[in-house]
């Protein structure tokens, strides 16, 4: 269980990294925290001929406020930095709450925000959370830059819009509107394990306590982040009474997901968890939105 040989490059600027990726194309992979890529290489499930290490590119590591009340995160910002950052706690509390659920402290020391997004594991908290928060990603290659909404970026199991010669350079999150509540609920064997099922909910109320906008996104129930459109429709324009939130949760479990069975949980159990967790998440998000 040792990684196969590869050529190693250690650029210090984004431009340098992009020119290496352009040169080596499909043979190359960027190396961020390595907390997903290196285990995969140790198992020889991936054998990239070239690794472009991003760890010495300091311009990719930052957490900054934007003028609109949102924030911007450089792709190489590490999980443990995000976990302790007061600006994240203030402006993106859903991200803040997700951090301790992501692996153990030793893995959060190295793992990065951008790596988690680019890897697109359907069980990754930050993937679901980014969609629920209406995040956007900046992608750059030698030929230019483009932006994608989180809701369009994830294409399936470990698949995204990223081209081999492209880097994810930044994630941005808009300010949460007033009277918005959030919740992240999951069931995992241990708090930091990959969840059997998780749900991120963001709920905005109008001035009469009716649901103006609801985003419910699941992790670990499909090939990517799964958005509960039917459940959101149940809540739209309505006062979120306990009965209505229960109905929305039931709709989510029945109509919004198509989970599969694996060694960790059966499809039926996942469906059950979706129902319970969605209701709990909506209740908490509603409580927080009212404050």
């Amino acid at each position, binding site marked *: *269980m040792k*990684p196969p*040989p590869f050529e190693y490059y250690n650029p210090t600027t984004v431009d340098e990294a992009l020119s290496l990726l352009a040169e080596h194309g499909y043979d190359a992979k960027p190396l961020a925290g390595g907390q997903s890529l290196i285990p995969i290489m140790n198992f020889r499930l991936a054998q990239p001929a070239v690794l472009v290490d991003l760890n010495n590119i300091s311009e990719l590591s930052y957490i900054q406020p934007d003028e609109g009340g949102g924030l911007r995160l450089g792709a190489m910002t590490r999980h443990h930095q995000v976990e302790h950052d007061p600006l994240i706690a203030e402006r993106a509390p859903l991200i803040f709450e997700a951090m301790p659920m992501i692996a*153990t402290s030793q893995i959060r020391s190295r793992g990065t925000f951008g790596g988690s997004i680019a890897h697109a594991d359907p069980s990754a908290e930050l993937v679901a959370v980014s969609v629920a928060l209406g995040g956007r990603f900046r992608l750059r290659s030698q030929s230019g830059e483009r932006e994608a909404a989180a809701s369009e970026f994830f294409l399936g199991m470990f698949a995204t819009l990223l081209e081999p010669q492209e880097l994810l350079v930044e994630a941005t999150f808009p300010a949460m509107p007033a009277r918005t509540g959030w919740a992240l609920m999951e069931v995992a064997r241990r708090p930091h394990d990959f969840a059997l099922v998780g749900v991120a909910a963001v709920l905005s109320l109008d001035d009469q306590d009716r649901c103006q906008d609801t985003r419910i996104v699941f992790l670990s129930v499909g090939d990517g982040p799964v958005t509960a459109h039917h459940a959101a429709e149940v809540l739209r324009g309505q006062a979120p009474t306990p009965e209505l939130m229960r109905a929305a949760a039931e709709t989510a479990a029945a109509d919004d997901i198509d989970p599969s069975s694996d060694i960790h949980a059966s499809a039926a159990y996942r469906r059950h968890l979706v129902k319970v967790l969605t209701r709990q998440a909506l209740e908490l998000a509603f409580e927080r939105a009212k404050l």
Partner: protein
Amino acid sequence: MSDLYQLSITVNDTEYQRAIEPRILLSDFLRHDLDLTGTHVGCEHGVCGACTVLFDGHPIRSCLMFAVQADGHHIQTVEGLGSPDNLHVIQKAFWDAHGVQCGFCTPGILMTLVPFLENNPDPDEAAIRQAISGNLCRCTGYQNIAEAVKLAAESMRT
């Protein structure tokens, strides 16, 4: 074989220069190139925690980093903690509270605890269990490890 990479790394305050292949994991580099076999290797995919060392003060999995990435950085391993006749406070507490059976998991747990106890001088049981939850132990059932951490925290405070 790919090209050798010239590496300069500080481990337990000693600087080492070596020429290595980029694919060498930090865990293997410590054990095979530097003969620092206190760092153990269990799973090589980040799950067991036996290979935990400090990288610039932060706990990391040395099986999930290439040694070339540690070029210019500081690593601390269990060998830098104490010696048989001069145990570190945490090692002493593991001895006194019987927190060690076969000892395979112990170096990883000790290295996890060094920064944890620095930042949490008076942790409760739940915080302790959370802190060591990334380190598997097949022998102790964790009870005496948790006791040892409490004892260590107490000794470090006084």
